[in-house]
Each structure stands twice: as C-alpha cells, then as structure tokens.
C-alpha cells in the first residue's frame, strides 16, 4: 500500500516497533487468561501487573489506582456515568471543548436529574480559569471534568487551580489526559485531580487499551459488570497483549518525551511559519499548546476540500477530530472559542508524530500552498 506522510497523530499513532516486540509473545505462546490459576494464567497476571506499574509510574500514580479499560472513551464514560450514579444528582461542570466521550455521557446523565454547565474557553481555546473557579465556588458542582489538552487545537488547560477549587467545594475533578500524555509532563498527584483518563493508541501503543486512574477515595460503580476483574470496576477478560503494549508505550513516552517534543516543536514552528506566509490563521496560536498540533484555516476555503486534496497528494491530515470528521458541522471547539462558523468550516488539523521529518513538513507546506492557490483561483473564477 502507498504510505502517505502522516500528520494525524492526534487521531491515532503508529505502533512503536519496540511496543510491537513486547506484545507479540502475548499473541503467541503467552496467551493465558489472567484469571486462570495455572502457569499460563500467572504469566498473564504478571504481565498485566508490570504494565500497571509502567503506566502508573508514567503519570505519578500508584498502580492500585489504575483501572484498565478498552480505551479512552470507555474510561471517560466509566468516570462520568459512575460519578453521576454514585453522587446525589446536582450540578456537573464540563469544559466546553471536551471530547464527545465526555460531553455525551454528561448530557446523558441529565435524564437522571443532573444539570450540566459548561466551562467556557477564551478566544485562544484554554478554559478560562477565573470564570471556572467562580462558577465552581457558586454552583458547587459535584463532578467537574476538564481535559488537560485539547485534541483539536492542542490548547493546554491550567487545570490545577480548577481541580483545587472543585476539591474545596466537595466535588470530584476528572481530567481527560489522553492527548497530553507523552507530549507534556502529566502528574496525577501534582495536578490534584481525583481521576484521569489515559489512552494507549495516542502514545504509539496499540488501539484497544486505556485506563482510568482514580483516587481510592472516589467510589464509582462499574460500567461493565461481570467477572470482577480490575477490583470490580471493569469486568471482562483483560486485553493482555494490548495492556502489555500500553505499559511499554507509556514507559517510552515518558523516557523519550523531551527529545520527541523538541523535535515536534521544531517541526511545528517551521510549519506554522510557513503557514503564516501563505495566509493561514492558526487557532489558539497564542495559547500554551501541545508541541505537535496546528489547527488552522484559510478564509473562503473549505476544510474538507483541502483535506481531500492533501490526501490525494499523499498527506494524511484531519479536518477535525476523527470521530466527528464524518459530519460537516463546524468544530464545537472553535465555535466555543468564538470563531465565526464560516472560518471554522475551513479548519484543518495537522498533528505531528514524534518522528516527524522536516523534509515532510516542507513537502506538506508546498502542497498546501499549491492547493490553496488552486482553490483560490477556482473561487476567483467562480465569482
């Protein structure tokens, strides 16, 4: 198959070869069910324990605080619905730029008597801390969820003061750190959060594993009931190979973070300098952002069209978050930032993998310029 230059690392990342090597024995001879009481089972259990340790260390948590899930979406659902089920219905506050797998569970629990309020971002995409704290002091939400870094703009939220205010007000604070891990330091205890969502396939691990890290004092019921795995919080035979891969990926993500992010930042700077020269507007450019993400638009150019043309030219980029890239609605994140819907429809996301090549960035810039020129020409002819 023809391999495009990959600039969609926030959707999913290629699997690290070292992670694959670690996984393969578990797709082969080490296939046991971790609940079995024989050698095959014990081998599987030991491998899961190691991975639990690796992921916990990567985010400064204790291994017993980790619940392995099938991925980030499940972990977010587990916390939001679980917290709603275990607390008296009241106010739930979520960031206005949350991923659908936080936003939709929150909307879902409204039918059980919860009132959901949104914490709005500034024009640069970061949740406004003062406004969030004021709302928390006033409304005393029992559950608050604000993502650590946004999947579309890459904007990093200053969640520590929001988490502290939530704690002060007696609420539980959760953060979706799926996009943050490996691209910035993530410290479960340092951030003062009650719960945190992680995903393997955003950090060069396999799709199919994720985790909810949760303070032991937070008590939520399982989303998936059954065999009692994961301290009763997540039933089902553990996805052994994927969990092993997740562990190794998490370890590498932290060990290699400084080199990876330096490379990404340098490439992103080159890219955004080039973008400026061809007249793109970068969303959240002034914000503290993940080093690999650029979300941008050109006036009067449709994002879907641009993305399709780039695909034909051999570049994999996104027009929004992958999950919602089938619908033509403009990005909610951009609308929440106050971006005019017309411009928002032009949005394109470039998210660099950790091994991004400057050469590919140059090629992407050239292809972008050429495509934008063509589209502008067509638009001019049409007028």
């Amino acid at each position, binding site marked *: 198959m023809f391999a495009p230059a990959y600039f969609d690392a926030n959707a*999913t990342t290629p*699997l690290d070869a070292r992670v694959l090597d670690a996984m393969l024995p578990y797709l*082969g001879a080490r296939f046991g069910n971790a609940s079995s009481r*024989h050698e095959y089972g014990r081998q599987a259990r030991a491998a899961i324990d190691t991975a639990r340790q690796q992921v916990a260390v990567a985010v400064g948590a204790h291994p017993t605080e980790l619940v392995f899930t099938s991925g980030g979406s499940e972990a977010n659902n587990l916390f939001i619905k679980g917290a709603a089920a275990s607390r008296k219905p009241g106010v739930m506050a979520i960031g206005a730029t949350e991923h659908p797998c936080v936003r939709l569970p929150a909307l879902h629990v409204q039918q059980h008597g919860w009132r959901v309020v949104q914490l709005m971002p500034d024009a640069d995409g970061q949740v406004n801390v003062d406004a969030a704290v004021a709302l928390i002091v006033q409304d005393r939400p029992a559950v608050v969820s604000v993502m650590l870094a946004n999947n579309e703009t890459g904007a990093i939220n200053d969640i520590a003061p929001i988490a502290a205010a939530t704690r002060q007000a007696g609420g539980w604070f959760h953060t979706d750190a799926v996009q943050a891990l490996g691209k910035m330091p993530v410290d479960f205890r340092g951030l003062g959060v009650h719960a945190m969502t992680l995903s393997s*396939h955003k950090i060069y691990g396999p*799709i199919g594993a994720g985790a909810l890290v949760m303070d032991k004092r937070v008590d939520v019921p399982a989303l998936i009931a059954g*065999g009692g795995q994961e301290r009763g919080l997540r039933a089902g*035979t553990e996805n052994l190979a994927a969990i092993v891969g997740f562990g190794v990926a998490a370890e590498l993500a932290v060990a290699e973070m400084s080199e990876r992010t330096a490379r990404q930042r340098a490439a992103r700077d080159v890219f955004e300098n080039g973008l400026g020269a061809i007249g793109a507007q970068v969303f959240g450019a002034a914000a503290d952002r993940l080093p690999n993400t650029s979300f941008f638009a050109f006036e009067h150019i449709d994002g879907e069209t641009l993305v399709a043309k780039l695909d034909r030219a051999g570049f994999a980029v996104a027009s929004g978050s992958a999950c919602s890239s089938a619908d033509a609605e403009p990005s909610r994140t951009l609308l929440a930032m106050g971006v005019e819907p017309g411009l928002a429809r032009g949005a394109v996301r470039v998210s660099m993998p950790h091994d991004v090549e400057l050469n590919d960035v140059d090629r992407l810039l050239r292809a972008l310029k050429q495509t934008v020129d063509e589209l502008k020409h067509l638009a001019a002819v049409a007028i």
Partner: protein
Amino acid sequence: MSKFPIYLDYSATTPVDPRVAQKMIPYLTEMYGNPASRSHSLGWAAEEAVEWSREQVAALVNADPKEIIWTSGATESDNLAIKGAANFYASKGKHIITVKTEHKAVLDTFRELERVGFEATYLDVQENGLLDLEVLKAAIRPDTTLVSVMMVNNEIGVVQDIEAIGEICRAKGIIFHVDAAQATGKVEIDLQKLKVDLMSFSAHKTYGPKGIGALYVRRKPRVRLEAQMHGGGHERGLRSGTLATHQIVGMGEAFRIAKEEMASENERIGKLRDKLLAGLSDMDEVYVNGDLQHRVPHNLNVSFNFVEGESLIMAVKELAVSSGSACTSASLEPSYVLRALGRNDELAHSSIRFTIGRFTTEEEIDYTVDLLHKKIGKLRELSPLWEMHQDGVDLNTVQWAAH
C-alpha cells in the same frame, strides 16, 4: 513431546491461531489508521478491514453484517444487550429472566438491574444442566421484557435448546438474548432460523485475540438498545470508542477459519474427548457433570469423589485445567454452576474442567489419562473417607463427632 503444562483450558481462553496473528500484524504496523478518519487513505484502509471482518462474523452465524456491533468482548456485549434492552423497553415492563448457570457477565448485570428497580427471576436447571422449557414458560409474566439464556455453558459445555426458547419468547413478544461466547466454532448457529434478538460473541474463545467481541442486534423485527458507551458515535451510536482495527481483523479471520473448519475440527476434538472420557471412566466414583448428549465435544467436566479439591489441583500441576470457571477460580467457593446441578459441595470442589481445542494432541490426552490415574489413586490412598467407602461404609449415614 508436549509442552508443559499441557493446556486443557480452551474455554478460559484460546491461543491466537498463527494464521490470525499473521493477518493482524499488518494492521499493527504499516496500516495503523483510525477507521473513523474519513479524510485519508490510512483511515479508509482500516475501515475496509473492519467491514471485511464484520462480514466474516456475520457469515459464521448467518446474519447481516449490519446486525453486528463491535465491542471490547463478550462481557461488554452481555452488558450492552441486557442493560441496553432492559432500559430501552422499561416502559413495557421491568421483569427479566435468566438462568442460575449463566456466566457472571450476565448474572452480575442482572443484579445491577435489580438494584435500579428491575425484578429478576433466576431459573433453576435440571440435574443435567439443561433448562426445562416448562419452567421458563411458567416464569414468564405479562411484564417480562427480556430473557437471557446462554447457548453453551462455559463450565459444563451443555447446549441449551435456543431454538425452542426463541419460539417461546417471540410468541410472547419478549426480547431474547443469548450469550454465545462459548458456542462460536463449536455449534452451528443460524440466526435466520433461531428467533434470537441479541447474541454476544467473543474472539478469544475462538482463536482470536482478547479485547474484541461483538453483539448481534436483530434488524427484522427491529430490536432497540440504549447505548452504554457514549462518545464519537461509532457503531451507529450503539458503541463509541476508536475501533481496534488489528483486533477486529483478528476476530474476522478467526471466525472465517471457524466457519471453514468447524465440522472437521469438532470431529477430531470429539474423538479426543471420548478418549479422555473413556480413560477416566474406568476409575471408580468419577462423575461427569452435565448432559453428555446436548454438549459441545470440547468439554469434559468431571468430579472425582473422595478427593479433596485443592489437593487435586495441586496434584495435577502438569495440566493447565480449571476447577470452576476461570473468572471465579480465585475464590474457594465451590462452582455455582455445579451447585445448581445439585452437586454437593464436596463433588463440586473436586471437579476438573477439561476443555480441548485446536492444538490438543492425542499424546496429551494419553498423558492426562495416565497422570490422573496415578494421582487420583495416590490421593485416595491418603483419604480415610475413601478407605471407609472401600469398606462399604455409607458416608451419608456417618454421625461425625466434633472434637
């Protein structure tokens, strides 16, 4: 010679078939796209692989690919089916029915629904592990909305009469869910014929990878569910979360192979099971748990009387077998499935589940028979109860004195 310990625990999990692993690996390396990415060829290639796999799963059970929803495994499928249907149809009634010998994934889900206001009936089974259809009919009420009965029991391998139960449920307008995690590749499943509305599948019981399963959701007549996982709207909104392409491809290939090889494999495995059964039957006081006729050929669950359960497991360390199901084997409680058949605690405790599979060899069965003869003999030599039994004492009549 065989690799030790000899693996006879195929109902706990199966190795990934090497052909399946081969098929998965490209999707772990160069074809790593997110199937939800609609904007580039890597995403499309992943989506194409996902749809190919959906066709394979549908083909094994004679369903329409559009009726197959990917999940993380049979446990999630059971949760989605039972909670999803019970909640969706709650306005019609809140009575739900299952069987005492179901997997924990079903039983725990029922308990959860009881806690939120549903009323559940747990049906007894007969001594052979099979459900008496009259018992089911008697339990159905006007407000019954859901019946859940597994196709093949994970501990004793008995096959329930899904066709007849389906007729009963359909006639009453009741949603019928079947956990078929242990059935795929072992018994013929024809969803054009069976009046089943929802059916759970697992890959890792059928030589596919762990972490992937599916739920069949009938379209005609249409069955509706309340989603249990919300988010990006994957799987027609019924199950959000990035699809694990490599795992899905693994399940597709595993089910493709199952369809192709089921007939010949069942014959071979049936012969091995019969050999194992014959080899164990010439010992005294050995009881087969569960009906032998209505049973998958892979399973033999046997209780060895006058042998203490834990020492039995310790004595057969050369075998990877299970006593009770893997999920509950960490507890010392006797198997609730065997208790439901009316076995006493001692017999339930001293049971071994042998499950034979694709890679089991005849030498392994011979070794197993030989080992059990030696070990059971030795354990019984040490047992005063066995000695009393040999002397003709009926232990049920003995008055035990406390010291």
